[in-house]
């Protein structure tokens, strides 16, 4: 079979970009799951809020993309912390499933409100000036913004990994996941740490939203279908480790991109099919601990 190299590379790049979003989102889910024991169904809605936040900052306050990259995660992260304080904290000690149901309700509320005001169509968000154009790599033209998304999200993922696995704060975090009562006895404010962790996970989702705004348009339902794919990524990866979710996220994006080139009909379903195959061979997921 003839391989059209530029087309293949283009699909690979699309795959890498989608992979960055999967990695950022499943990383946030893993961070939240580790501390709160909640699968955050509202993650897709918060990702969408991140993109809308960038849109508002630009159109209402005239703050450009770079400001949005910093401010959106903070604003949405604060929103998440309020959510954790007012709603999620009442669920501690209950079955995990209640967390899933509650955050599902929150996702419906957020998406419903945005759909009500903005309909279902997309709002455009321009690529920032500094990142326009393309670089000639010799074998292909790489649009600068797309390269930026991949590199930037990889850096953010690795920083998050470093923070959790290699710093003192991360050590507290992991200790609190293992035994909150004991960590509390050492004088560490565990409830505040939980709130901050939720804010961090939500901030990662919002950051992904800002990154995606110039590529995909800003739409109220942009996170709704994405989140199901991310759940499949989480099942495949197993959420056992932070690095696991990063690698799985990127890898699945690439596999999806390759499928789009070789067998486009299956590109929407390949992640789910992979999930089935992984479950048949290794139910706990690729990096997961057995439950």
């Amino acid at each position: 079979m003839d391989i059209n190299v530029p087309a293949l590379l283009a699909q690979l790049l699309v795959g890498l970009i989608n992979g960055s979003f999967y990695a950022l989102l499943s990383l946030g889910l893993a961070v939240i799951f580790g501390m709160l024991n909640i699968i955050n169904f509202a993650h897709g809605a918060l990702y969408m809020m991140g993109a809308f936040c960038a849109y508002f900052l630009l159109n209402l306050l005239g703050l450009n993309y770079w400001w949005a990259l910093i401010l959106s995660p903070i604003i949405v992260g604060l929103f998440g912390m309020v959510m954790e304080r007012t709603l999620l904290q009442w669920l501690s000690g209950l079955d995990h499933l209640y967390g899933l149901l509650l955050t599902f309700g929150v996702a419906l509320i957020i998406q419903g409100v945005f759909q009500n005001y903005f309909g279902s169509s997309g709002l455009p968000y321009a690529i920032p000036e500094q990142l326009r154009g393309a670089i000639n790599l010799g074998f292909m033209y790489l649009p600068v913004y797309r390269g930026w998304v991949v590199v930037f999200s990889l850096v953010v993922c690795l920083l998050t990994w470093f923070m959790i696995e290699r710093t003192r704060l991360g050590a507290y975090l992991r200790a609190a996941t293992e035994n909150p009562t004991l960590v509390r006895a050492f004088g560490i404010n565990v409830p505040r740490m939980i709130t901050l962790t939720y804010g961090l996970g939500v901030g990662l989702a919002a950051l992904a939203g800002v990154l995606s705004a110039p590529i995909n348009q800003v739409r109220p339902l942009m996170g709704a279908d994405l989140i199901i794919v991310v759940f499949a990524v989480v099942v495949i990866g197993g959420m056992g480790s932070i690095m696991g979710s990063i690698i799985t996220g990127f890898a699945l994006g690439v596999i999806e991109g390759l499928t789009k080139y070789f067998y486009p009909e299956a590109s929407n379903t390949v992640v789910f099919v992979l999930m089935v195959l992984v479950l048949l061979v290794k139910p706990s997921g690729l990096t997961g601990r057995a439950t």
Partner: protein
Amino acid sequence: MTSITQNSVPTTTRRPVRDEMIAFGIMTVVLAVVPFTGVYPFFVMQGLCFALLACAFNLLIGYGGLLSFGHAMFLGTAGYVSGHALKVWGLPPELAIVVGTGASFCLAVVTGLIAIRRQGIYFAMITLALSQLLYFIYLQAPFTHGEDGIQGIPQGKLFGFIDLSNATTLYFVVLAGFLLGFLIIYRAINSPFGEVLKAIRENEPRAISLGYKTDQYKLLAFILSGTLAGFAGSLKVFVAQNASLTDVHWTMSGEIVLMTLVGGLGTIFGPVVGAFVIIAMQQYLAGFGQWVTVIQGVIFVACVLTFRRGIVGEIGHLFKRSL
């Protein structure tokens, strides 16, 4: 881990079977009288289909502790297959129902074998992902007509002489189907099988140590639940006369969860009440556009935070009755 229905099942039960018989009698009489009261029959029929669907879903979560977030796939699959059988193959209604329900049965066997490999939230995510997989397949498959769905499905004559295009006749056929499904679920819950299922929900490791092959019980519950959900989907085809993607989309799965949660997880009559409440809400709030989604979200949050027993669960708790 605390059980999901620990708060929803009333612990004190007083002559439960008699209470349930009385409640069942009241429900049957009310539903039988409805066509003569001037209530829009289409609305009640739709409610009956969703009530059966929610009851089937509740069998899994309320008694097996398994939250399926993909039950729409059984509704949609049976709907598409029954609709195709009626319209393209020209099968009589009774065979179309059998074929549609059979398709959901097969789907439940396959998805059940995959999904029961994980528990808790993973089980929920796997069922959700599987139903989304099916959504994309139905979106691309030629026989479903993509976004248009299968339209104008003929209702035909059940067993060759019961004319389903007559609204009152159709109503009683749907009611009979609902009651049949309801009684199957009721029987399953109150059988040794149901008792083992409840034991698994409360403490799976202990059930395993007692020698029960819990995976087999969970799989059986999943198949039974999926098949009955498919039966509801087949019945719905005769009411709506179409089969479309909305029935397979994951938001439908969310609505099924909401219906059961509002009525009362793990109560026998809860899903029926919950289904009618949600359907009525959608019917009468349709003018509010997307605010309906917001209201549903608020109900979700309120149920989880303050109202975990649901309507029927709270009533049962108040009167110390198991309903």
